[in-house]
């Protein structure tokens, strides 16, 4: 049960961390299924040579697919986004290296509230790849004093505020396998120092659109991205009512199914 204070924490700081929601056995199963997916997608390529990212992801294996409907996960978007939330998509990653600062870049903050529920299956700390955030930076203000950090910058000479990106003031969301990290992607976030091949898997949710403008915005996102907002066939036809419901908005809007 997510408390009103936790909701206030999320609204104010842009994130929440839930400690030890999953048992070691469940984490092992997640890791096993994740590695199976990665191996299937990788084919003959050598693992560990580059960042491996797969979308959609969780749908491909039974335990991972059940997570979006697991009460421990389901309550999060239900509480933070409302009962008419829908599934934007899922992703799996074996990360390499650092991820530069970004959040609400490009066209600015999303008009529709959204969250990413993230599973880190390795221990991650401040200097070993945990998510770093600037608390409160998800709220749009004018002028935006953080503008230089909003879009990913891979330039080696980039010195925001005159310092290396890893020196930008932040709060580190250190976590252990079994924890869940939840944040809005409008929040400025990054990671530094992580080892190659570290697991980061996620499901992203959005609040139900309230206006025609919201719907048009969603159509724009759908056109721009190959996987986001494409409901997986297995979820559209799921035996589980809550899974069918969380992709039904995408079906209603006529968004094409993904091949999974």
């Amino acid at each position, binding site marked *: 049960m997510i*408390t009103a*204070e*936790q909701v*206030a*924490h999320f609204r*104010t*700081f842009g*994130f929440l961390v839930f400690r030890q929601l999953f048992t070691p056995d469940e984490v092992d199963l997640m890791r096993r299924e994740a590695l199976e997916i990665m191996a299937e997608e990788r084919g003959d390529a050598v693992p560990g040579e580059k960042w491996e990212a797969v979308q959609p992801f969780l749908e491909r294996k039974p335990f991972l697919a059940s997570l979006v409907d697991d009460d421990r996960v389901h309550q999060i978007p239900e509480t933070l986004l409302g009962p008419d939330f829908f599934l934007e998509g899922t992703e799996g990653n074996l990360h390499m290296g650092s991820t530069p600062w970004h959040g609400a870049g490009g066209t600015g903050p999303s008009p529709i509230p959204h969250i990413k529920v993230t599973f880190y299956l390795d221990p991650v700390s401040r200097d070993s790849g945990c998510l770093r*955030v*600037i*608390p*409160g*930076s998800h*709220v749009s*203000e004018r002028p935006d*004093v*953080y503008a230089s950090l909003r879009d990913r910058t891979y330039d080696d000479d980039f*010195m*925001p*505020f*005159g*310092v290396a990106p890893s020196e930008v*003031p*932040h*709060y580190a969301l250190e976590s252990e396998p079994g924890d869940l990290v939840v944040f809005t992607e409008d929040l400025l976030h990054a990671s530094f120092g992580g080892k190659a091949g570290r697991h980061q898997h996620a499901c992203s949710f959005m609040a139900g659109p309230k206006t025609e403008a919201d719907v048009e915005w969603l159509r724009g996102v759908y056109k721009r991205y190959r996987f986001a907002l494409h409901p997986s066939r297995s979820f559209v036809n799921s035996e589980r009512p809550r899974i069918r419901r969380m992709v039904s908005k995408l079906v209603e809007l006529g968004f094409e199914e993904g091949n999974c």
Partner: protein
Amino acid sequence: MLTVGQLAAFEAFGFLRLGAVFSAREMGDIRREFDDVLEEDRDGRRFTGDERQMVQSFVERRAALSRLIDDDRIYGPMVQVLGPDLVWLTSDGNLYVGDTDWHHDATVKGYPQIKVALYLDPVGRDTGCLRVIPGSHTPPYHHTLEPLSASDSPGFGVASADVPCAYLESEPGDVVMFHQTMWHASFGGGAGRRILALSFAPYPTTDAHAAYLRSLYAAVVVKGRSREPFLHSGRPRLESVVSRLRALGLED
């Protein structure tokens, strides 16, 4: 002097840590004077560590310490942030004990006050360093954090020590400067950790700011002969600082 990047960081985040500004020898001198003033305040009695000892109008009492006010390494950045006619407010020397919960020293009135702090002992994230919430010095974010003032719990479902923040770990010689409207705290520090703080403000440009400055000055400045090294330093820059205070009617 602060770089363009540092000025942008100070505006965005509300704070700045400048590493190794003062040498070990200088810190030794500062520490000796600091300890002396506090011992004098205790009439020579030993510090028991039962509660915080704070002495206001601190650096003003000693010629050597009052030099910090117009030291280029402090005065220069203050001029960059507050303008050439900045106002000296006050200073305090502290032996801190225990935790300091989330608070802000000043309210947001459009009249900035900057604190420059020297930590005379090493402090880390769990040993009493300053914790700050980046960007919390300006509204509206500053105001959304008001639940932090609650006496029983911060109101965000976490203990005070777990409120998300940045940690300004510091070694002797570092200088930490921050907007006094910033939400800040410290946890885990040992008894008797030494912190010297100086406060500056801009020259008031409105009647409201001038009135606010007068009430603030009356509240934080301990007047009397103990401030002679500051009031009559013989140092041109410091004397111009004092002249401005006289022009504002804050000093005789």
